[in-house]
Structures are given as C-alpha cells and as structure tokens.
C-alpha cells in the first residue's frame, strides 16, 4: 500500500487558502492602483493640455506683441491659476525650457521673463534646496537653463558634490553662467568625471564664447586622472599649442585612455617632435593607441615617416593597422602611386589592402 506523502502536514490547506486570499486582496489592490494611476495620468494629461494651450498663447503673444500688454497679463493670471500643484508647475517649467532651447536672443530672454513672472523660479529653488539628489539636480538644471545668475554662487558650491548627477549639473551650470572661467572647479575636483559628463561639459563650453584656459597645464598634470583626460580634450578641442610639452608627457602615463587622448591631442597641436614621439613609442603602445597614432600620422606626417610606415605596413601583425599604415603612406607621400605599386609587387602587403587604398584615393 502506497502511503500518502506526509510532507504537507507542515503547511495545511488552510494556510495556503489564507495565503491565496491574501494574494487575491493584493491583486485587487494592484488593479485598483493601476486604474487610479491611469485615472490620475489622464487627469494630468488634460491638465497639461490646458496649461500647454495657455502657455502657447502666452508665448505667442510675448514673442509677437509687447510682454506687458494687458492680454499677456491676463493670460499670465490664468496660467498662474492653473499652477496649483508641483506637478503642474513642473510641466510648465519643462515646457518653457524646451521652448527656450529653440530660441535665441531676446526671444529666449522673454521666455526667462515669463518663467519669473509665473513665480516658477521659487519652485526651482525649492527643488534646489531639497535633500533628495534628483530634485536638487533638477533644480540646478532649471535654474541655469533659465539663466538665473543670482543662483550662480550657491550652485557652484555643488561642483564637487559627492552625488554624480548633482555634481555634473552644477558643473554644467557653472560653465553656462561663467563660460571658460567656470572651469576653475577643475582645480578642486576630487571626484570622477565620466565620459558622458565630459561630453556634456564640452558641449556646454561650445555654446559660450571662447575664453582663456590659463590653468590648462595644471589640469593636464592633475592627480585626478579624469581631470587630466578632460584637460587633454580641452587642449584638443581648442587647439592649445602652448601645452605641447605637458601633453607629450602624458604619453608616459599608465592609463591607456589618457595616452589615447594625448595622441589625439598631439595630432591637433602637433609640433616638431610629435611624429618622432609617435614613432618612438609606437611599438610599446596598445593596438588601439597604435591605430590612433597611425591616423594622426596620416594627417600630420610627411615623407620622413615613410620608412616607419613601410615597416608597420609590412611587419605589423594586425591587418587593420597595416591598412591604416598604407593609408598613411598614401596620404603623406607625393609619390603615392609608385610606393603603392612597389608594396603590391613586392608581395609584402596583401594586394587587397593596396587595392582598397587605391580605390579610396582613386575616388
């Protein structure tokens, strides 16, 4: 006779039914929450649509007519009446920021004025003063997007914040307010700067008029490796010929990323010894950095580099480097066709590689 499995004396059916009942209640609760959310989101949608309509009318009136016209005053009063909760205020701020991004000059300033007249700055400051990181970062973003220069100093205090998002928003804001002078935060930066942050900062700088980079040599020699990397990018973007020596010294750094960026930057600010430096360091470099060197030599090289390039083209084990070396030969040497023919006929470089380069230059 087979015995029934006795395991389930540990959990009686009643326990399971009770748990199921509990799950049933959770399901009901979840479904109610889902529908509440959908209802709230729908209400928000209509509420946003109302604000959007009024703001569009108001912006249109400000851009076309006088900002102090009675019609504008009336619209502002109506919009203020709609901005009864933080969500509506946030929507209005977002809409104004998006509008301002597409405008320049006085038109953009009119949007800033509208932001102030709608008392939305208070909302941004409230967020900026919040202890919650994303609210604080959002507040900073809004204040600098709306060009609130009186907040420059309190915002600048967060350029070395332990929170990454707050830190980068504060750094971008500082650059937005002070241009190149805002880069002073690099002197005291103890935290990291991600690639993303660096791109944001570079793009923010491109929006401001070009200024001086007095502390650049200091940043290139910073103990913070990310500051070094960023400084090298600055030297590259703004072609800072005066820091050639400092940049060249970065070729001895341990970080492959820094050496890579140094190669890129040296290519842009090339001096007398640049190509020689590349040739000397080539064999010790990583594959990625070798490629970067060859690409730079293709731009700054000349006939003097031919023996080096021929050596790479014939002896390098990686095909992509060989191709780049042949491309560099074709770029640097006036007698391109003959050299390519020699390479092809000697059989030291694959015929298809030479054909590819011939095709590229033939076009």
């Amino acid at each position, binding site marked *: 006779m087979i015995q029934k499995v006795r395991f389930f004396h540990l959990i009686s*059916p009643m326990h399971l039914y009770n748990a199921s009942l509990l799950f049933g209640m959770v399901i009901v609760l979840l479904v109610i929450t889902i529908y509440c959310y959908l209802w709230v989101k729908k209400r928000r949608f209509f509420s946003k649509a109302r604000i959007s309509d009024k703001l569009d009318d108001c912006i249109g009136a400000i851009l076309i007519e006088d900002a102090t016209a009675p019609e504008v005053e009336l619209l502002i009063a109506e919009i203020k009446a709609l901005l009864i909760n933080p969500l509506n205020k946030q929507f209005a701020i977002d809409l104004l920021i998006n509008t301002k991004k597409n405008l320049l000059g006085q038109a953009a300033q009119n949007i800033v004025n509208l932001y102030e007249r709608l008392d939305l700055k208070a909302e941004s400051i409230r967020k900026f003063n919040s202890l919650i990181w994303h609210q604080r970062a959002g507040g900073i973003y809004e204040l600098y997007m709306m060009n609130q220069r009186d907040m420059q100093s309190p915002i600048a205090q967060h350029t070395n914040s332990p929170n990454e998002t707050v830190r980068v928003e504060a750094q971008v804001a500082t650059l937005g307010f002070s241009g190149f002078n805002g880069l002073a935060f690099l002197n005291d930066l103890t935290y990291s700067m991600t690639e993303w942050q660096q791109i944001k900062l570079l793009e923010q700088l491109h929006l401001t008029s070009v200024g001086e980079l007095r502390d650049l040599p200091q940043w290139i020699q910073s103990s913070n490796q990310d500051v070094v990397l960023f400084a090298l990018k600055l030297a590259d973007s703004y072609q800072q010929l005066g820091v050639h020596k400092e940049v060249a010294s970065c070729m001895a750094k341990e970080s492959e990323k820094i050496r890579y960026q140094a190669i890129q930057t040296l290519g842009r600010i090339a001096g007398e010894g640049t190509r020689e430096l590349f040739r000397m360091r080539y064999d010790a470099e990583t594959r990625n950095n070798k490629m970067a060197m060859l690409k730079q030599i293709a731009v700054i090289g000349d006939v003097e580099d031919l023996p080096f390039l021929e050596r790479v083209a014939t002896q390098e084990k990686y095909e992509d480097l060989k191709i780049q070396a042949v491309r560099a030969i074709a770029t640097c040497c006036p007698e391109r066709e003959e050299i390519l023919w020699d390479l092809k006929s000697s059989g030291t470089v694959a015929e298809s590689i030479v054909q590819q380069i011939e095709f590229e230059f033939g076009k």
Partner: protein
Amino acid sequence: MNIISIILSILTYGIFIYSVVLLLFYVFIGIYSIGETRHYLHKNAFTDYRLLASSPHIPSISVIAPAYNEGATIIENVRSLLSLYYYNLEVIIVNDGSKDDSLDKLIEAYQLERIQRHISYKIPTKLIRGVYKSKNPVYRKLVVVDKENGGKADALNVGVNVSGNDYIVCIDVDCILEQDALLKLIKPFLEENQTRVIATGGVIRIANSCEIKGGRLVKVHLPKNYWARMQSLEYIRAFILGRMAWARMNGLLLISGAFGAFDKQIVIAAGGYNHNTVGEDMELVIRMRRYMEEHKLPYKVSFIPDPLCWTEAPENTKIFGRQRNRWARGTIESLRMHRVMFFNPSYHVLGMLSYPYWFFFEMMAPSIEFFGFIAFLIMAMLGVIAWSVFLSLLLFIITFGYVYSAFAALMEVISYNMYHRRSDMARLLLTALTEPFYFHPFVVWSSVKGQYDLLRKKTTWGEMTRQGFGTATPVAAASTSTK
C-alpha cells in the same frame, strides 16, 4: 514505507523546495527591479539627448542588421535605420546569401556600387562576396555586405569584421527602433569610469496591432491577437522586472539578439558570435562575461528600461512554438558550453548566481513542470494525492502568478505607460488570467519539445513567418531572437 512512497516523497519534497526557491526569486526580482528603474528614471529625467546626437565627441557606432530573404520590406527597413539620430553612425546590412532579390533592390534603391575593401577576418566567417556603398552622399552611412549563406551568427560576425567603429548594435532588420534609441543605448557605456561596460540591452516591445507609417511607430496599441497580447505581458515582466533586477546585480546573462549594443573590442576578443548554437545572443553575452572574468577585468552588462525597439511577435501556435522550441535549445546549448562556471566562485555573481538561476529556473523549469505534471497524473491514478492540499496549492500558485503579472502591469503604468487606455489595460489583465491554463502550458510543451529536439541533434532555426508591418504580404524571415 515502501520504495515507491520514498520516491514520491523525494519528488514531492524536491518540487516543493524548488517552487519555494523560485517564488522567492520572483519576489526578490520584483522588488529589486524597482530601485533600478526608479534610479534610471530620476537620473535621466532631464537628460538632453540632442546634446549627444550632434556631438563629435560621441563614440562611433555600427548598426549591424543581418537580412535573409527580406526583399519585401528591406528598402523600408533600411530607410528606417538610416533615419536614426546619431552623428557617428554606420549602418551595415549583411545580406546572408538571400535567395530573393534583396540585394538588387538595395543596389537600385540606394544607388550602391561595389567597393574595393580588404576584409580582415578577425572572426572566421563564410566568404564575403562583395561590399557595397552608395554613390549618393545622402546614404553615406550605409554599407551593404553580400556574403554566402551561413546563418544569423555568421552574418553578425561578418558585420563585426566589416565594422570600423568602436561599438556595435546588433538588431533584427525588421525591428522598429525609436529615433533616439542609439543615443539612449550608448549612454551607459559613457557613464562608467572604473568598470568597462561591455554590453547594453534595451527593452523590446510587441508591435503587433500598433500603427506604423514609413518605418516609424505612430501609435501604440495592445495586440488584438491573443498570443501576441500574452507575449506583451510576458515581455513587460521579463524586461521591466527581470532584466532590470539582474542588471542591478550585474548578473545579466542575456541581451536580446533583436536589439543590443556591444563593445566591439571585447566581442572580437571573446571570439564573436558562435554559429554552433541557435541561442547565439545569449551565448555571446555569457562568453564576453566569461572573458572579462577570466582576465580579471572589471566590467558591467547594463540594461535600460526605455522601450526602444518594437518587434513583431508570432501570432499563431505554429510559429510561436518554433520560437520557444529554439529558445529552449539555445538556452541549453549556451549553458552547456560554459558549464565550467556552474557554482564556480571564480566567476563571482556570474558563476554563483546567474548561471545557477538560469540552469535551474530557465533551463530545467520546463522539464520539471512537464515531469511534475506527469507525476501528478500518475499519483492521481494511484490515489496518493491529498486533494485538499493539491487544490489549495494550485490556488496559491495561480494567485501568486497573477500578483506578479499585476505588479508588472503596475510598474509599466507607473514608468512608461505605453498602454494607457483603460480598455487596453483591462484586456491585458484579463489575458493574464488565462496564462496558467493555456499560454503557459503551451510554452512548457514547446520548450520540452525543444529539449527533445536537441537530444535528436536538431540544429535548425525553424522558419519564422511574419506578417510584416503595414503590409498584408507574409514575409519569410530567417530569424528572430527576441528572447
């Protein structure tokens, strides 16, 4: 106690413990994913992707899309890819020896000419017949590679070999990407300094019944078809809960072949896609991770919750069954190839958590469920079932499943709310009610068949017939791997 009773006890205890651990995992995944999604949404609330779109400082990307007999839709699909916002972009279409007129259509539509190009076979592949680029500068981003037929993995490897950029994004050519999909997908690679992000995945959604015009998604609807609708729910659970939680633990083992970005250098170092498995997407991620672990390099596999890629889901049991059959085979093959990692502490989270989870709860689950059901039938016939316990346990499991589905639906509403019509949500939740009785048993059956097919050494993909977006003509596609 006789031998049969002992066996039954072991079976009962075993399945019970297995189920408890699985349920605990689900609870953990559900809760753990919330933090990751919240953090992502807060962090990116005011991210201006336009900044990246136009920046010369962004890394270069090659989008690789293998195509096999896609002639009916290839022109539109390529146009859609060429319209993606990204400054440093190259779109590589790999014609995997199509038997139709795909290549001719591409040559004509995009004014392609054959170019001289030396191909460095960094990853061994089938022979490349030719590389084409457009004479028209408008299509300068497009590269078309014609090669001998070798399957999806081989075609992707050709794309990797041809790519001249730092990152590759592998997609199914008929997927519809959001315009800013690449910008969002590349951001995680730029956000880590100490660890190297080797791959990033994005959420894939079901495009059936959605309105699509000119290769762009215009309006989102919940699929009308039952199977596609059920898959919508399944994808929400898998992507918004599962993948986000695993990404937070840095334990993600799978980035869908339909849409994923990879660090090309690591892809090549790891050896590229393996064409000896039908689960090449999963196998690549495991191998890349294994490579990083074995070389003691700090790394991360990232995942973002934005719905960026829309794909067509199978709408009938025949095609759907084939897909799940293949997924089951792919999972076993991938895990078998890397069995050295099983509970191996040298592989950290990968070896001690991700691999065992996949082994026990993804790979073995269909067999355990299937044999559990067989055991149940036998026990019922032998009269050894405690019916009161059985019914209460059944109710417990079913209600737990509903809780999980409803929770996933709530997360969807709170985060991206793609199905914002109340009627859509009602249909989704009602569809979930049928899952334990219809959809899930079919998935289990298809997976068990897949495991059986693997034993029979069946290695084919199985034809995937698609309706195509905005067309009534059925389109035969070589593959889809929206796992």
